[in-house]
């Protein structure tokens, strides 16, 4: 299939009157009808709401009202984002009857911006337990090959965008749940700086590691979505009152003169790393050098420290959220979710204190590195998307993505697709940057998108 028209182009056509929001929405609904039965990306389709949103957008354009870059554009939300009057399940038996009264901040921002909500998307249970077949809804599948996982936990978001059902969907990222699925499905996935996007109304997994961000077809689409959702929220304790720049302004500036470090030991010494992933990173490094960037290997603290620190904090915070249900309704959790959460009962105050001390040390190390470099280039996933059967053993499911380091430190990080393996699965890289400098991360990602030829790669047409 073609990649379809970008969000920016759709916006231009809406404003020129050469298309309508109803037409865009009906096309999206038709594609969902034809593709979702094989991919299970949506757990709830809000067809009537979508068409109502679209008709309102068309009427507003006709009346000269312009609500911004997502006005009239279809989108979808991971089913942990609260949506007023629309069931929000977290893909869990424990919340099948939950209908929020109030929108999450992100949902409210899209609504205020005139965007069209197509529905709610599959996730790993409570943004952690999956892929799994013991939940109320089936797991989403990879649009490049439905025998392979789409990654998680933003599995439905990746499957929906990767198959062209929707141009952009929101995910959440606590240890890589945006960047991992983006890598597996050939998408751009952005975890903004911690505090950039409000998490209020998004069911938490780990409050000091959770981030909200978009998965989309292109870097430009990603920048547009971030522009809509970024900003201070006094009612999210982690939200930071920082200026929101124009994320599109520097996209086309290229990488000449930028300094980019590669923490090579992180991925090159990882037992799970596939040679094709390492080769893809080296090819990107070469492309960036050819475009004028200075690219050098650098040394950060070993990845296992980031992983241990992140897992201890995540498991502890998640256990605190789910403690009552783990005690009173343990059999209502899926097996993988239960396993990941129950270990929280064993974390001592000394463990958590050690993790918090280590977190400061690791954050300082990355900050220090980024005083000399504009960004870091590293792996996102260590392998192309694995098949379902290799992921269903929960004791073997970890260790194949390297993303939690930037949840631990809070730095912005983006997964960018670069090529397709001979087996027909996408590969990509990860770029991380200085806190609050998503603009630089997006700029480098845009350069990679162009230099790698990814823009010319045909996307999967069938599931």
């Amino acid at each position, binding site marked *: 299939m073609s990649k379809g028209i970008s969000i920016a182009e759709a916006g231009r056509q809406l404003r020129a009157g050469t298309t309508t929001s109803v037409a865009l929405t009906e096309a999206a609904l038709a594609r969902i009808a034809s593709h979702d039965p094989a991919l299970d990306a949506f757990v709830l389709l809000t067809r009537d709401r979508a068409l109502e949103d679209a008709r309102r957008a068309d009427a507003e354009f006709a009346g000269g009202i312009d609500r911004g870059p997502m006005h009239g554009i279809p989108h979808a939300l991971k089913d942990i984002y609260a949506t007023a009057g629309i069931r929000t399940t977290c893909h869990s038996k424990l919340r099948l009857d939950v209908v929020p009264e109030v929108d999450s901040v992100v949902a409210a921002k899209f609504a205020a911006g005139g965007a069209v909500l197509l529905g709610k998307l599959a996730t790993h249970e409570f943004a952690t337990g999956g892929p799994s077949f013991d939940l109320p809804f089936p797991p989403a599948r990879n649009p490049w090959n439905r025998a392979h996982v789409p990654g998680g936990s933003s599995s439905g978001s990746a499957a929906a965008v990767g198959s062209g059902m929707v141009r952009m969907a929101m995910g959440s990222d606590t240890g890589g749940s945006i960047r991992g699925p983006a890598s597996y499905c050939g998408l751009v996935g952005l975890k903004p700086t911690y505090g950039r996007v409000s998490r209020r109304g998004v069911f938490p997994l780990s409050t000091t590691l959770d981030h909200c961000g978009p998965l989309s077809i292109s870097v430009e689409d990603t920048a547009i979505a971030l522009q809509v959702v970024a900003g201070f929220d006094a009612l999210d304790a982690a939200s930071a009152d920082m200026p929101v720049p124009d994320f599109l302004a520097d996209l086309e500036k290229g990488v000449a003169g930028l300094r980019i470090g590669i923490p090579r030991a992180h991925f090159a010494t990882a037992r799970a790393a596939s040679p094709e992933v390492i080769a893809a990173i080296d090819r990107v490094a070469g492309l960036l050098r050819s475009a004028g960037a200075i690219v050098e290997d650098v040394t950060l603290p070993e990845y*296992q420290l980031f992983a*241990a620190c992140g897992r201890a904090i995540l498991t502890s915070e998640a256990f605190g959220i789910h403690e009552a249900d783990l005690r009173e309704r*343990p059999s209502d959790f899926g097996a993988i979710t239960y396993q990941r959460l*129950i270990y929280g009962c064993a974390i001592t105050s000394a463990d958590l204190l050690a993790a918090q*001390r280590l977190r*400061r040390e690791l954050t300082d190390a990355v900050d220090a590195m980024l005083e000399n470099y504009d960004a870091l280039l590293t792996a996102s996933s260590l392998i192309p998307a694995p098949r379902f059967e290799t992921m269903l053993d929960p004791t073997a499911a970890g260790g194949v993505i390297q993303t939690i380091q930037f949840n631990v430190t809070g730095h912005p990080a983006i997964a960018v697709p670069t090529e397709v393996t001979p087996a027909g699965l996408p590969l990509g890289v990860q770029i991380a940057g200085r806190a609050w400098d998503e603009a630089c991360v997006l700029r480098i990602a845009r350069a990679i998108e162009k230099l790698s030829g990814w823009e010319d790669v045909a996307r999967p047409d069938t599931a």
Partner: protein
Amino acid sequence: MTDTPKAEHEAEFDFFLARARMAVPADHRATVVAGWADFRAQLDLLHTRRDATHEPSNIFRVKGVAR
């Protein structure tokens, strides 16, 4: 941790479960016990850095990305 007998791992985890007043459903137990050693090893890794650089007063301060 790799040298710790499996039974010791299981007993240790059962201690933590009892302390939390929790019981693992029978159909989840094998999976949970199987993954415990890996999790325990990651916790142990947190306690391996004890030189002067990692002294607590050098680590805790109000500074950072958003915290």
